[in-house]
């Protein structure tokens, strides 16, 4: 097909803005990876928001079963919260250690994060097992359905996070602080902190509001 360009150079700046800041080109890989992971986290938070919404809709539907104030144990929840918030701190320490290429502090930070995560999961598991044993499992009422799903979804995320954490430690052990390993570490840290933020939501909406009711 013949090229019959006759319009001239009219379209380079058709709106005559004058000053145009030129886009510098593709971002470096570190930025691209972190950005993509942020976008993923946003989508994950949208998913959580559905479970929050379901909880808000169903929390009054106890169908003759217990309500929140009858089953929540604030002492346990307080320990869970402390564990998770502390683990965010130690995860941050591990991130700094990774940036400093310091293996000892990296392993230590990750190990403590892992232990705190496991304690959190153990307490949550015990709470769930206890409720089920008392006949207050998720099939008892719509309220318990929504409760188990929201808290359980967060718990599943923490479990996946622990698996990822162990994989990261193994990666650093085997590959060292390579650029791609560091990028993954950054994503892991983002993930872990995001779970913390979601827990703050769970803590407030489920346990604090629920205990008061």
């Amino acid at each position, binding site marked *: 097909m013949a090229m019959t*360009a006759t319009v001239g150079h009219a379209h380079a700046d058709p709106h005559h803005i004058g000053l145009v800041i030129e886009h510098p080109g593709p971002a470096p890989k570190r930025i691209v990876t972190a950005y993509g992971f942020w976008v993923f986290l946003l989508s994950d938070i949208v998913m959580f928001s559905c479970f929050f919404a379901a909880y808000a809709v169903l929390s009054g539907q106890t169908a003759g079963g217990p309500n929140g104030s009858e089953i929540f144990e604030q002492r346990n929840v307080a320990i869970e919260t402390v564990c998770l918030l502390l683990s965010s701190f130690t995860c941050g320490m591990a991130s700094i250690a990774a940036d400093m290429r310091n293996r000892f502090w990296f392993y230590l930070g990750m190990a403590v994060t892992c232990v705190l995560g496991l304690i959190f999961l153990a307490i949550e598991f015990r709470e769930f097992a206890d409720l089920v044993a008392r006949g207050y499992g*998720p099939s008892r009422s719509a309220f318990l359905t929504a409760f188990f799903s929201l808290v359980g979804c967060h718990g599943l995320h923490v479990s996946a996070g622990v698996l990822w954490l162990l994989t990261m430690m193994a990666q650093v052990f085997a590959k060292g602080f390579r650029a791609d390993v560091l990028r993954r570490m950054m994503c892991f840290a983002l993930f872990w902190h995001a779970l913390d933020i979601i827990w703050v939501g769970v803590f407030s909406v489920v346990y604090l509001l629920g205990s008061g009711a």
Partner: protein
Amino acid sequence: MPAVRTVEAMMLGKLDWSAVPFDQPIPLIAGAIVLVAILGVLVWVVAKGHLPYLWHEWITSVDHKRIGVMYILLASVMLLRGGSDAIMMRIQQAVAYQSQGYLPPEHYNQIFSAHGTIMIFFVAMPFVIGLMNLVVPLQLGVRDVAFPTLNSVGFWLTATGALLVNISLVVGEFARTGWLAFPPLSELSYSPGVGVDYYAWSLQISGVGTLVAGINLVTTVLKLRTKGMNYLRMPMFCWTTLASNLLIVAAFPILTATLAMLLLDRYLGFHFFTNEAGGNVMMFMNLIWAWGHPEVYILVLPAFGIFSEVVSTFSHKALFGYRSMVLATMAICVISFMVWLHHFFTMGAGPDVNAIFGIASMIIAVPTGVKIYNWLFTMYGGRIRFATPMLWAVGFMVTFIVGGLTGVLLAVPPADFMLHNSMFLVAHFHNVIIGGVLFGAFAGFEYWFPKAFGFRLDERWGKAAFWFTILGFFITFVPLYVAGMLGMTRRMQHYDVASWRPWMIVAAVGMAVLTIGVVCQIVQLVVSIRNREALRDRTGDPWDGRSLEWATSSPPPVFNFAFNPDVRGEDAYWDMKVHAQQQSLQRDGPEYQDIEMPRNSPTGFVCAFFATIMGFALIWHIWWMVILGGLGAFATFVVFAWRDHDEYVIPAEEVAAIDGINLEERRSLVSMAGTV
């Protein structure tokens, strides 16, 4: 023998020979034909020794162009499946007047559920995602998407979903609940079979694939644009891609969560949407449509982008009102989240809520109208060439306006109370989805085919396909509007009202015409492949295009561009061509450099393999296989994370050799144009 039964239940879950519908000849024969066809193709591939080629060049490819082509291939195959369902339904309703027709109710219900599910999730979605994958990195002037391997994972997971839906044809059954599986019908007490499970798991798996594609394309558009490609210089298709993928990222997690809740109800006795224990059915409606309405725009926005490119190119003018187009796109992106309740005005939310959502639904027609006018003004005063893509674009404008107006009509709550769930609604959404999305996909297919394969499609067969399709469309769906006005509800396996009958017969005739259109397109493909030497596109710019995808050869080299293009304004390639007339296309003997490209990876395929196993096992309650699939998926993830070299280098000499050929063609073209 209870012991034997327990072992069987452990090994096979709910699966036994009764799952295969030996008593229903239609799915069995269809399944057998497909199976024979697949086996035939496989045997041919292996016998001809094409397997290594297929494995290295396609299945494990992380090249966005290849993945885009595979997406479109998947969509095309599934279009034939979904189209067969449509033909069966039209015939059923034409004959089932005061009789049972030829499809028993339980089979008919599966067909309309499968038709909707397939057409939305496995035709429209992969088609537009395929086109975005193929074109957007080229238009942005970059070498690949942000996450090439994830891109492959996303495609293969989508393919897994499609595979599971097709398996349901011969092993077990598909949902009988309609394409959105509303509870309480979709709950275990009313749908005890595996149909809903097939539906939900295939959508969960392909939904993950879609989310991955969405994250990938958002990041690509926002972070990988070439030098000088400012936001307001991006081609319109990139803008609509951005909007559409932002919607994917924001909306698909809602679908995932909603289906997860439904599955929890079905598998573990939860009470999200049950009638008992305080479950709330209307919560499902709200959640599913909070995804479902944005989904409509996820599909149609890329189509709008395609039309913008096509109309501008074939009118030989820059797009009219580029900035208003960008604004309209982003406005639709936002408002699309504020209209979901219009899908169930009859729920009884009250007049205030209904009024607000009715008004919001009418407001969203405004930016859409802006777009229509922009296309019309782009054509106004242009030198229009009615090539096949342009025919689809013009056909779209006419068809889509009709569909849009009936949509505004349905947005009036009192009118909706009359027309809710009627054939009028069916006609309306086919009017916008076929007229908008499918015509857009076909326009994009015709327009970018030469870019993907290096030769144009046959124009005569293309035009025939267009005319049969648009004619067939109107003959099929205008009668459905009328039937809806006459009170016919949707999803009827048979009916006794005499006045509906003639319209159903006309619609069936229309379906036949539509089918001829599809056949024309298949013939077009075959004829074009045969005549590919005559149709060869040597310059990479067969349509006298305006954006960067036409600045490289057809098909583009694996690295897309030997040099990262430097963009100076809108219509980047048009600009370059204009300049080239004065300066000769490029400086002589450009200094080529080594190019790093991502390596192929079987990760996507292996992931999909385990996802298929896991999905199938979950549907049939085969728990050991679920665990096996899960372990396999995690192992794949670790192995992928362990790889040491994820890139390879194309040496400068090779880049020079590849680029040189295309440069020569272009130079000769420019010098020819210069003499005119």
